[in-house]
C-alpha cells in the first residue's frame, strides 16, 4: 500500500465508514458529480449513489439543518462546508439545534460537520477562516483539528462514530503537502477524541498548538535545539473540545514555561482559554509568563505579503520562545 496524502486519508475515512455503516452519508455543495471542491469525495457518488452522496444547494443553514434532522432520525450525516468560512450561515442550526438537542431531549445527534479551514494558500478573507474559537466556546459540540495524515483518517472515523455533533476542521494547506504523505495501517483504526499527543519531547518549554501550526512549531523547536540548546516539547492538541487537560498540565508541570501557538486570531482564542487553565491550575509551576503567538485581531488579508505577515511564522515563534526562555 502506497503513502497517501492528508486529503486522501479524509476520503478514505469517509469511504470506509460509508461501507461499514449504511447510516453514514455525505451531503454538501458539489460533493457528488464534481467530487468536492478539493476532490475529497472523488468517486463516492459512483460507489454509493446519489441517495448517500447528495449535492445540495448553496445553503449552509439547509445543509446543517438537514443533517440535524437526519441525525435525529437515526442517520449519521457528514455535512461538508465547501469552505469552512461559510459555516457561519448555518450557525443557528449548530448552536440552537445540534448542540442543545441531546441536552434538552436526550436524543443523540450523531453528525459531523467538516470542511477546509485555515490560511496560507492565498485564499483571502472568505476562504481562509479558522473558526474554531466560536464552537470551542459553545457547549454541546466537539471540535477536532488533525495535523497529520494518520490523525486525519483516525479522527474523522471517531467523529463519524461519535453519537453527538463533532466539528472536524481539516487544514487545506496540509491537503496535498508531500511531506505529510504517510502509509496508513490497512486495518481499521481510530484516533480518540480528547487526547493530545506529544509530537516532540523536551524539558525547557512546552509549546501547545494544533493544526498546520504543529509543523511550524516543530521546525522552530528544531532550530531552538540547534541554535539555542533548548529542548522544547511540542504538544499537538488534536482535540480542542474536549481538551486533554491531563497531557497539557503534565507537560507544563515538567517544563514550567508555556508558549501557545495558533493560527486563529489572538483575542478570545483557544490560547486565551489555555492560559486561563494554566494560570488557575499551575500558577506555582510557572517560571515565566504564559505566552501566545497568534494572528493579529484583524480580518484575514488577501495580498500575499500581508498574508505572510499575518500568519504566525517560524520566526515569530522563535522570537517569542527565546524571550520566554530568557525570562
Amino acid at each position, binding site marked *: 500500500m502506497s503513502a497517501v496524502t492528508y486529503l486522501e486519508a479524509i476520503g478514505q475515512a469517509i469511504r470506509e465508514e460509508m461501507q461499514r455503516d449504511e447510516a453514514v452519508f455525505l451531503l454538501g455543495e458539489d460533493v457528488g458529480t464534481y467530487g468536492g471542491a478539493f476532490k475529497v469525495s472523488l468517486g463516492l457518488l459512483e460507489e454509493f449513489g446519489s441517495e448517500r452522496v447528495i449535492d445540495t444547494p448553496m445553503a449552509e443553514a439547509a445543509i446543517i439543518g438537514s443533517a440535524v434532522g437526519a441525525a435525529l432520525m437515526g442517520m449519521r450525516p457528514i455535512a461538508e462546508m465547501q469552505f469552512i468560512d461559510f459555516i457561519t450561515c448555518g450557525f443557528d442550526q449548530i448552536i440552537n439545534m445540534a448542540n442543545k438537542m441531546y441536552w434538552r431531549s436526550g436524543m443523540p445527534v450523531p453528525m459531523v460537520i467538516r470542511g477546509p479551514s485555515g490560511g496560507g494558500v492565498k485564499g483571502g478573507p472568505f476562504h481562509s477562516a479558522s473558526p474554531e474559537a466560536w464552537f470551542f466556546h459553545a457547549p454541546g459540540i466537539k471540535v477536532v483539528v488533525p495535523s497529520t495524515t494518520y490523525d486525519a483518517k483516525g479522527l474523522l472515523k471517531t467523529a463519524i462514530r461519535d453519537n453527538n455533533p463533532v466539528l472536524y476542521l481539516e487544514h487545506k494547506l496540509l491537503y496535498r503537502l508531500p511531506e505529510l504523505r504517510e502509509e496508513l495501517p490497512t486495518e481499521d483504526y481510530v484516533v480518540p477524541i480528547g487526547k493530545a499527543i506529544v509530537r516532540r519531547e523536551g524539558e525547557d518549554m512546552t509549546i501547545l498548538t494544533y493544526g498546520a501550526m504543529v509543523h511550524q512549531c516543530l521546525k522552530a523547536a528544531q532550530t531552538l535545539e540547534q541554535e539555542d540548546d533548548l529542548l522544547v516539547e511540542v504538544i499537538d492538541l488534536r482535540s480542542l473540545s474536549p481538551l486533554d487537560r491531563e497531557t497539557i498540565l503534565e507537560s507544563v508541570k515538567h517544563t*514550567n514555561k508555556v508558549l501557545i501557538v495558533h493560527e486563529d486570531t489572538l483575542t478570545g482564542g483557544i490560547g486565551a482559554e489555555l492560559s486561563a487553565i494554566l494560570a488557575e491550575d499551575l*500558577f*506555582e*509551576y*510557572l*517560571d*515565566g509568563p504564559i505566552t501566545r503567538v497568534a494572528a493579529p485581531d484583524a480580518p484575514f488579508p488577501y495580498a500575499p505579503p500581508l498574508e505572510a505577515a499575518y500568519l504566525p511564522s517560524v520566526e515569530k515563534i522563535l522570537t517569542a520562545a527565546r524571550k520566554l526562555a*530568557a*525570562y
Partner: protein
Amino acid sequence: MPTPIKMPRLGESVAEGTIGNWLKNEGDWVERDESLAEIITDKINAELPSPVAGRLTKILVKVDETVPVGVDIALIEENADVSTSPPNEPAPGPDAAPIENPDRANVMVMENSGISDGNSSKASTRATSAHVEERQRISPLARRLAREHDIDLNAIAGTGIGGRVRKEDILAYVAQRQEAPAPVGAQFNAPSSPSLEPTYISPAPASVGAQFIAPPSPASTTAEDDGIEVITPSRMRLAIAEHMVRSKRTSPHATTVVEVDMTNIAKWLEKNKEDFKKREGYSISYVPFVMKAVCEGIRKFPFMNSSWTEDNKIILKKHINLGMAVATDAGLVVPTLYDADQYTLAGLAKQISTIAQRTRANKLTIQDLQGSTFVVNNPGTFGTILSVPIINQPHAGILSMDAVVKRPVVIEDDAIAVRYMMYLCLSFDHRILDGAGAGGFLQSVRTKLQSYGREIDVY
C-alpha cells in the same frame, strides 16, 4: 515567636555582609524602621532598618563577623509585652517583607523628614532598602521552590531578565548548598554572586580568600619575624582587586592619548571660580567641562557607550550615565552621575559636588553604584600627567584626565607660547572599537574643550 532579622542584600552582586556595629543591645526595644545595625559590604555601608517593631531578644552575629546574605543575624520578639500571638503562625517568609515594606517604609520616610530635618541620611537608607526589596523579581515557580527548599530569596541572585529569580537559579543554589553543607565559611568560598565565581580565582587570590576567612577582624595584620608583614586587605580592596583582574582579562585594552589646550577654560576658572562658589555654594573645576565634552563625543561615537556581552553581542546604551572615580580613605569608588548629558556645566558641577560629598561621607546608596556606562577619571588632581586607566566593566572605555600644566607650545605661525595643556588618555575595549573610533571620539572631546572662548556660559 521571634522574627529573624536577615543579612540584607546591599547591591546586585553582593553575596555577604559584615556587621559594622550594633546600634541596639539585646533587650532593647526597637521601632519598625529604626536602625538596628551598621552593615558593611564590598560596595556600600548602610544602616539596617528593623523590619518590625519589638524587643531585640538575641544578637546572632557579632560585630566584625561576616555572613552570607540571608543569614539570620538577630531575633526580634514582636508583641514582646503582649504574648497573645498564635504560636504556630509562620515567621514572615521571604516574600512577606517585600510586599509589606515599601509602602510603610515610604510613610516612615515622610514622617521622618517631617520630624527631624537633619536626619535625611537615615531616610534615604530606608528608602533604598525598601527599593531593593521591591525590585526582587521572582517567578511563581521559583517562589514555590524556594519555600519548599527553605531558601531565603534574598540570598539568591536571579539570572532572568531584569534579575528575575527563576527555576535554574533556585536549583543551582540548592545544588551548591548540597555541595557545601557547612553554613558560613563554605558558602563564603563559593558565593552565588556572579562577580566572585570560583572560576575567576586563580591559585593566588584563592589563598587571599582563605586568609580573609581566618582572622576575625578584616583589618587584622600579622607581624612576622623575617621583616615582612602580611596584611589582610579590606573588603573593598579585595573587591577592587577582583574587578581589576577581571577587567584586564575580559577586555583587550588599548590606550590612546590626545593633548588638549585648556587655556581658555583655565583662565575662565581662574577668574570665575571663587565667585561661582560663593554664588552657588559648590565648586566648579575642569571635570564638568570634560564630562560635557565626553557626552557630546559619545553622541557622535555611540559605541563608546556600549558593552560587549559574553555571548558576543554589543549592547548600545541610550542613557549616558557617567561614573566618576572618587578616592576615599578605604579605596576607589565609582559612583554614577545619571543622564550626564542632560546637565549644563553648572548642573554637572553641582552633581559632581553632591556625589563626591556623599561618597566621602560614606552615604552612597546602591543606586549610586549601579548603572554607569562610561567613566571619567581625574588622577590629574594628584599631579599626574599621563595615566593609563583600566576599564570599569562592562564599559567600552574609560577616560583619564591628567593635570593641566603650563607648557611651551608651538601655536599658529610657528610661534611658541605658554599654554595650559592636559593629556586625555582613553583606554578602550578593542573588541568593540578600533583606533579610528577611539581616536575620533578623543578628537571630538578635544575639539569641544578647545572650542570655548574667553567668556563661558556655564548655565
